[in-house]
């Protein structure tokens, strides 16, 4: 077992040991969203001409769960280890900054996909969106989870206490996910807000992911893929740089 595998496995076991909180709870939350919004809006809203609202909402909720949980995993693990002081066990090892990155981001992807699959399975009963292009679904789920995992790692390195982490989550991650088109197609928005939505990278992750289900989306999936890919490369480069220089973890 190489070092990164040990850390990767430890990070997975860490969230799995509190699975009620890290996997089951977000699945329940997503089901509640689906039940309530589906009940209120089904039959009143049609998207892309033919898609019912509940079927439209489902992929959005799955992707939102993937993204939020991928972020929560790396960020809370890192900030907890810093606050508890047990990060020193890693700092004393020969693990390279690349090993840290792969393990933290990889385990975030696993948690994001675990929660996303859970939401998908649990909500299949309510609506069955078609699966036009499954490869796009997988590609966007993995890239989105990796992007948020890397972002969570940066937030975890930056935050010195839980308070700062909560601020990052509530003032940046939450608004960006909620305003990304999870609950609506941005074509239903006024022109100005459509333009604003195009500046939100989360929009492309949700839109591309949804394309895999319906074969229809607000923008081309290739555009979404390029933007998500560039964002992932940029965020990963920053996370790797911070790890290499020991930002806020080595003095």
């Amino acid at each position, binding site marked *: *077992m*190489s*070092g990164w*595998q*040990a*850390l990767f*496995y*430890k990070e997975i*076991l*860490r969230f799995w*040991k*509190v699975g009620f909180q890290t996997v089951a709870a977000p699945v329940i939350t997503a089901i509640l969203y689906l039940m309530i919004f589906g009940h209120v809006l089904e039959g009143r809203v049609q998207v892309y001409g033919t898609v019912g609202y509940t079927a439209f909402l489902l992929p959005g909720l799955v992707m939102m769960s993937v993204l939020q949980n991928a972020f929560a995993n790396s960020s809370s693990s890192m900030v907890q*280890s810093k606050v*508890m*002081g*047990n990060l*020193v*066990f*890693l*700092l*004393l*090892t*020969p*693990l*390279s900054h690349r090993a840290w990155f792969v393990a933290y981001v990889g385990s975030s992807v696993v948690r994001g996909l675990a929660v996303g699959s859970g939401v998908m399975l649990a909500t299949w009963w309510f609506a069955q969106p078609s699966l036009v292009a499954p490869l796009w679904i997988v590609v966007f789920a993995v890239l989105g989870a990796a992007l948020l995992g890397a972002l969570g790692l940066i937030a975890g390195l930056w935050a010195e206490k839980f308070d700062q982490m909560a601020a990052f989550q509530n003032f940046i991650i939450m608004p960006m996910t909620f305003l990304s088109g999870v609950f609506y197609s941005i074509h239903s928005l006024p022109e100005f807000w459509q333009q604003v939505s195009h500046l939100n990278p989360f929009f492309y992750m949700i839109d591309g992911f949804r394309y895999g289900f319906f074969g229809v989306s607000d923008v081309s999936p290739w555009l979404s893929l390029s933007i998500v890919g560039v964002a992932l490369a940029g965020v990963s480069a920053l996370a790797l740089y911070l790890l290499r220089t*020991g930002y806020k973890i*080595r*003095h």
Partner: protein
Amino acid sequence: MPAVSFQHVSKIFPSPRGDLHALKDVSFDVQPGEFFGLLGPNGAGKTTLISILAGLTRASSGRVLVHGKDVQADYQAARRQLGVVPQELVFDPFFNVREALRFQSGYFGIRHNEAWINELLDGLGLADKAGSNMRQLSGGMKRRVLIAQALVHKPPVIVLDEPTAGVDVELRQTLWQFISDLNKRLGSTVLLTTHYLEEAEALCGRLAMLKQGQVVALESTSVLLARAASNVLRFKTDATLPPELAAQARITGRVVQLPANDAHAVERVLARLRELGVVAQDIEIRKADLEDVFLELTGSHVRPATPVLALDEVDV
């Protein structure tokens, strides 16, 4: 080749109230197989020096080598040779003792380490706690796990930063027996910082003393001991000592200890006390120990106004 080599290590912590020079041009070597002690009052820079060695902190200038490997440029090779027991009692609340040790082995790329993990658990009296969650362990038990974690990869150099602070007598005995055994049996090099001078005196063949970030002594323990005033006059009193005596005295509550090499020195002190009408009880003369040398070299016998508060402060 030295096991550990500190070469002109300096560390400056920038601060708005002026830079803090935590270490000033510290140089010394620790040879393979040595049991080496690093002593100094709080804030002397011991923990900063250990942190630089462990790669937790970067030196502002100078370098540190572990068996010839630079702790920055060749950090992976250097860290494989080092087992560091941190000063803080930290633990990962998600795992039990055995899991913590398995993961720690894994980080060093070691698979199937069960035989050595079991040996560590037995040697440190943790065998019956292997399945316990870290949260359920007492402070002493957590300290043992910290030591086991530092040793999972069988490092040739073991670094212990204040390992016995706040630890009961029994555990101190177990711990020292275990470490001494590693030192003798496997030839492990041990670098230790401690506040317990009798421990350093009993265990360490050689010592470095730090004061305000500088090495003020670097010698074998026996030579250092010989440097001290060979005798100490000890008595108890409720009265305040005159400044000229207080300046060289080691005062612990009612107990006063003064260097007094010969009969003349003893007479001088007693005469001065009689002159001032100070009542001295339980007078005795004893051999000087490491603490006397330590106080003499670091000048710490001039006690601050609130010495008790300063005792447990964490080093910078």
